[in-house]
């Protein structure tokens, strides 16, 4: 079978905020860019996020998700990005060839560089292993959001939400507005996982109870969900006996974490960080496979679309430089960046010895007040930044100047 192979400088996989920003910045840098997305409509998950709070960083104003998406799409089109929507990438190889499938047609793309921007998916009931029956009415929060905001389908009347992630909090308000009763939000950790503003405007405004240090221990109902059992957990995540109670409900939403969608990256030989489940990258967002870059939620989960977008723009510029042969320090030795005390992970995970600056994104292991984030090279402090509130749900960024290169084998990031 002979197949037509289309050649281009750069392919971006995924047309959400990160992918659109990567495509735009790469095209503006002079690369010929093809953006491939599996949905008919570009913009990714932004299209179903009809609430506002987007765009403050990127556009300096408060937008809803669909408005933010349309602006990003318009910018990409204006920059000359070729859009292949309704197209699924079924295979990516280390030599940067891709197999695409669209409307029953299969074709090959070959690019000098590839930017991974496939985003993430939600953790499901199966991954939590909640005991009980298997009735209808158990949804991930994002699925319920799609049904409510895109498909005009009512998900239920009396709702319990497991997990206090932002999508769950947003859905608590959304379903209240749609006439449902939200009986409570259940969170295993002793603190909420979502943004403080969403606790305030989505739960407090509607007197929706938030049960911290609790989880769902059993699901009841034959055809349709009838109730969930909720119990209190101790600091070691063991059920405290005698604390269980039943909450009658016909709908359970799960807002319990997101997983980067890296199936096609693995096949190309991209190494993943076990903590982020995203690629391990250097300061240019390049993975261990030369010419393959990663950004947005497929790299690590972001709190804000704006930050995924900014990261995408940086990755797109790097990938364009690689495509156009303008990346000089390709073969420089790498310095590993290690998460130290109080730090869960960092992105990037390594930096070229000759880099003169690196922007580090990281998450902390537990909430705290008045801390200082510190980046050290062999005990010598390269950068320190005070942080008033730290929280595992809040990503922190620190700019590390390393003028004249880094004279160490590893950098350590820690919180004190």
């Amino acid at each position, binding site marked *: 079978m002979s197949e037509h192979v289309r050649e281009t400088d750069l392919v971006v996989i995924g047309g959400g905020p990160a992918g659109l920003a990567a495509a735009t910045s790469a095209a503006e840098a002079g690369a010929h860019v093809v953006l491939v997305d599996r949905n008919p409509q570009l913009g990714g998950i932004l*299209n179903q996020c*009809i*609430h*506002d*709070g987007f765009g*403050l960083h990127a556009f300096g104003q*408060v937008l*809803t998700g*669909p*408005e933010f998406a*349309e602006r990003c799409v318009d910018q990409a089109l204006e920059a000359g990005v070729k859009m292949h929507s309704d197209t699924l990438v079924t295979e990516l190889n280390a030599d940067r060839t891709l197999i695409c499938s669209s409307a029953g047609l299969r074709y090959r793309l070959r690019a000098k560089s590839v930017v991974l921007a496939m985003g993430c998916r939600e953790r499901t009931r199966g991954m939590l292993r909640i005991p009980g029956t298997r009735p209808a009415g158990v949804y991930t929060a994002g699925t319920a959001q799609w049904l*409510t*905001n*895109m*498909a*005009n389908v009512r998900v239920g009347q009396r709702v319990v939400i497991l997990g206090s992630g932002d999508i769950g909090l947003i859905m608590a308000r959304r379903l209240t*507005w749609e006439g449902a009763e939200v009986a409570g939000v259940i969170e295993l950790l002793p603190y909420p996982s979502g*943004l*403080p*503003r*969403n*606790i*305030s*405007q989505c739960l407090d*405004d509607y007197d929706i109870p938030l049960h911290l240090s609790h989880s769902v221990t059993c699901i009841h109902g034959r055809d349709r969900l009838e109730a969930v059992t909720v119990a209190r957990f101790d600091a070691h995540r063991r059920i405290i006996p005698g604390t269980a109670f039943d909450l009658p409900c016909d709908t359970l939403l799960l807002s319990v974490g997101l997983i980067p969608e890296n199936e096609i990256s693995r096949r190309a030989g991209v190494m993943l960080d076990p903590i982020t489940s995203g690629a391990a990258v250097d300061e240019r967002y390049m993975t261990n496979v030369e010419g393959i870059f990663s950004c947005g939620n497929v790299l690590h989960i972001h*709190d*804000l679309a*704006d930050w995924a977008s900014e990261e995408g723009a940086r990755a797109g510029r790097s990938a364009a430089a690689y495509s156009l042969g303008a990346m000089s320090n390709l073969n420089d030795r790498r310095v590993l960046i290690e998460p130290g005390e109080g730090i869960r992970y960092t992105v990037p995970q390594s930096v070229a010895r000759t880099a003169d600056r690196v922007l580090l994104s990281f998450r902390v292991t537990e909430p705290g007040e008045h801390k200082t984030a510190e980046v050290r090279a062999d005990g010598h402090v390269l950068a320190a930044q005070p942080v008033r*509130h730290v929280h595992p749900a809040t990503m922190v960024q620190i700019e590390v100047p390393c003028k004249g290169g880094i004279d160490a084998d590893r950098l350590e990031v820690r919180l004190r």
Partner: protein
Amino acid sequence: MTTKQITCILCPNGCELDVSYGDAPTAETITVEGNLCARGEGYALEELLHPKRTLTTSVLVRGGTQPQTSVKTAAPIPRESLAAAREALRSTTLDAPVSIGDLVARDIADTGVDVVVTRTVTQHHAIEPS
């Protein structure tokens, strides 16, 4: 002296504001700490006196590629008007195509604020049988 903790919801920073005031909160008597930007102070005062929220919801679309579009109040409206505004929009149906910024309702629930479209929905074209 009354002290209160308020989470500023104007942006995703979500500043924890420590608000204190004398007998009644006014622009003169209120002190706000913990805000990262100047808007936090105005927000704290407004939140104590007249809390406002932006309503973001959906309305039905006839003849579109999607059954509904998303809409928002063009500015925040008083919190106590949210229910009336939602009720007024429940019976609204738009005709495709609709574009971002299109007017959905003028002066919703007597708030003086308009409701506008936030997602483009194109017209659905039925495929003619050949």
